[in-house]
């Protein structure tokens, strides 16, 4: 049977954001996957250079709507390192609580999407209904459901008072019950098992070689979590377990995320009990001294890296973001080889792709497993070369 090429995307119902794959099919089996990225490139990094540090906090938040707390925490930490200041302890706890609530929200959203990709609409509706409770809590704390704007350079904007804490505890205990219930469904339901067990295998060896991050790599038995390896915010005071499953399939990645929700709930409850009192914000100068800083956090999708360089002014000289989805794309292509067409959406969903945050001034050549960044000059030179060679073709 000859190979059949099937395009997936840039627009496809299984993908919430534009990315294009070309699959080579042998019947219903994928023999090759070729991604094409960059449909939602927004020039965020360049834009960040033209704005002040204060404004960049809001820009960073808008790189990704789902993990907005991760982006601001990471950026703010980098700037605080440049300034040489330490936020007050209470602010660190509040950052942690918002961050973990954000993770719960993101994982629940993802779990719903996975159920939807499998055609299990009921589970999708139930999970998204319960996710509203987390959003309500976040709205109470921060004043918004998606873009929290709570992290400021030097601390946080809002405090968590007793009324909110009480409401939060109630919502969290409800969520714990529900999450355990969903875990039971995922583990026992025959149709979910048929679609998730031994599907989208990513061997431990490959996960390390292809630099996969986050739940994707933890589902392959690699114990890699920035929260444990390089604690930030109040993480060095809050105990938690790194969830690792080693069956290397979609089911493992699902269970990692479900267990992380439960883990996050306990972390938040612990943080609420042990929160120190005091200020939530220190005053910071507007001008940031020259220097450079790197900050890492464990976003819901994996390791998020910010690099910020300041030349000693109100504006950064360079901001570089490495989002987790980008790191997971080579691993995704590996998982897709040998899969069924019907499994493509489930496997693509299993890395929890967030494409808008991925597309920036980065060039990926997946076939060579090589990632590079071009400066503006190099990019210009490349474009000139490209046009010249095309003109040459036309003349001939």
């Amino acid at each position, binding site marked *: 049977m000859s190979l*059949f090429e*099937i*395009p997936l995307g840039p627009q*496809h*119902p*299984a993908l919430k954001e534009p990315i294009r794959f070309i699959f080579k099919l042998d019947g*219903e089996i994928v023999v090759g996957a070729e991604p094409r990225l960059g449909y939602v490139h927004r020039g965020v990094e360049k834009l960040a250079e033209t704005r002040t540090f204060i404004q960049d906090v809001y820009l960073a938040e808008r790189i990704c709507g789902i993990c907005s707390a991760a982006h601001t925490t990471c950026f703010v930490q980098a700037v605080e390192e440049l300034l040489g200041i330490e936020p007050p302890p209470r602010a660190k706890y509040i950052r942690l609580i918002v961050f973990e609530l954000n993770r719960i929200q993101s994982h629940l959203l993802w779990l719903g999407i996975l*159920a*939807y*990709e*499998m*055609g*299990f*609409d*009921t*589970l999708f*509706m*139930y999970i998204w*209904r319960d996710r509203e409770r987390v959003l309500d809590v976040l709205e109470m704390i921060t004043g918004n459901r998606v873009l929290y704007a709570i992290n400021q350079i030097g601390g946080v904007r809002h405090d968590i008072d007793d009324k909110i804490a009480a409401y939060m505890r109630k919502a969290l205990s409800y969520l714990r019950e529900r999450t355990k219930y969903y875990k039971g469904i995922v583990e026992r*339901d025959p*149709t*979910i098992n*048929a*679609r998730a067990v031994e599907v989208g295998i990513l061997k431990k060896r490959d996960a390390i070689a292809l630099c996969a991050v986050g739940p994707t790599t933890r589902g392959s038995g690699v114990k890699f979590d920035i929260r444990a390896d390089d604690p930030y915010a109040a993480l060095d005071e809050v105990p938690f377990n790194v969830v690792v499953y080693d069956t290397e399939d979609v089911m493992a990645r699902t269970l990692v995320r479900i267990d992380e929700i439960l883990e996050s709930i306990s972390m938040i409850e612990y943080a609420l009990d042990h929160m120190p009192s005091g200020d939530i914000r220190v005053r910071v100068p507007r001008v940031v001294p020259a220097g450079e800083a790197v900050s890492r956090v464990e976003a819901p999708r994996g390791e998020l890296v910010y690099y910020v360089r300041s030349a000693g002014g109100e504006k950064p000289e360079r901001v570089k973001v490495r989002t987790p989805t980008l790191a997971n794309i080579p691993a995704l292509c590996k998982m897709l080889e040998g899969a*069924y*067409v*019907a*499994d*493509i*959406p489930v496997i693509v969903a299993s890395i929890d792709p967030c494409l808008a945050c991925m597309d920036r001034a980065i060039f990926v050549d997946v076939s060579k497993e090589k990632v590079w960044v071009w400066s503006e000059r190099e990019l210009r030179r490349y474009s000139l070369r490209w046009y010249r060679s095309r003109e040459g073709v036309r003349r001939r």
Partner: protein
Amino acid sequence: MSVLEYLMVLVKTLIYPGVIFVIILSLIYEWVDRKVYARMQNRIGPFYVGPSGFLQPFADFLKLLSKEDIVPPHVDYHVFTLSPIITLYLVLLAMFLIPTGAWNEPYAILAFEGDYILALALTTFITIFSFFAGWSSVNRFGVIGAMRALYQMISYEISMFLCAAAVALDTRTLCLSRMAEVQASGLWYILLHPLGFVVFILSMQAELDKVPFDTPEAKTEIVGGWLTEISGKKLAFFRLASDIKLFFCASLATTLYLAGPWGPLGPNILWFLAKVTFVIILVTTLRAAFARFRIDQVLAVFWKYAIPLSLVQVLIALFIPH
């Protein structure tokens, strides 16, 4: 035959319990299906058109009819445009074979010895025409969906037909109306053939392209499957046909296992409608409770479990007649 009798035949075929009755009722059953599905998921469901969204399927149908009729280039024009009409015709024809109990008559509009075979053959034809629609649309997703529809057909039809054959063996007739009548005097076949009923409902789920067996039109995998290129009036006809198919399959299950229109007291048509509603809610519950199987898993489910179980049912019917 007098003029009045001719008129009566006309009324029966066109209005009640014929074409118009069937179309209106299947649109109402689509509403039942959607509403129950929504309520099971803690949603409201259809809500705006008519009292509690009752007229939503009618509105959808009319809206699709008013849309532009698009025929993409390179499609096989005749097959592509005729398949929705023929599908609609076939499902309507199939409905004539079902004893509904209208006018308190025990027999269907078209009732003869062997109509059971015609009814099962029509279900096959309906699937084949959905294959034609997908295949002729020359769309990658359409072709894959069409292939899946055929793959799936060669599995669920066998178990479905075997279960139905067990009922025919037991009732010693090949007339659907007679089968229902036989059950009216004795026990319903849902009690005598519980295994057959379960397998029949499962196969029906695949026949109707519902979760967990909706692989031919799995929207997150292959966009719309064989329906991808179908739009406007053609989509309206296909959707109406699939609603009638739901009604037909539910009434087939009612006829075979729930004694059709027969009940202890009250008008027969009400008994018939109540039983059909029960079967449709059963289908909706199954649809809500599962995820979608992959095409190879669909085949495995039927060939490994459903077909052997239906064979067992046939053997039981052969050796332990009631």
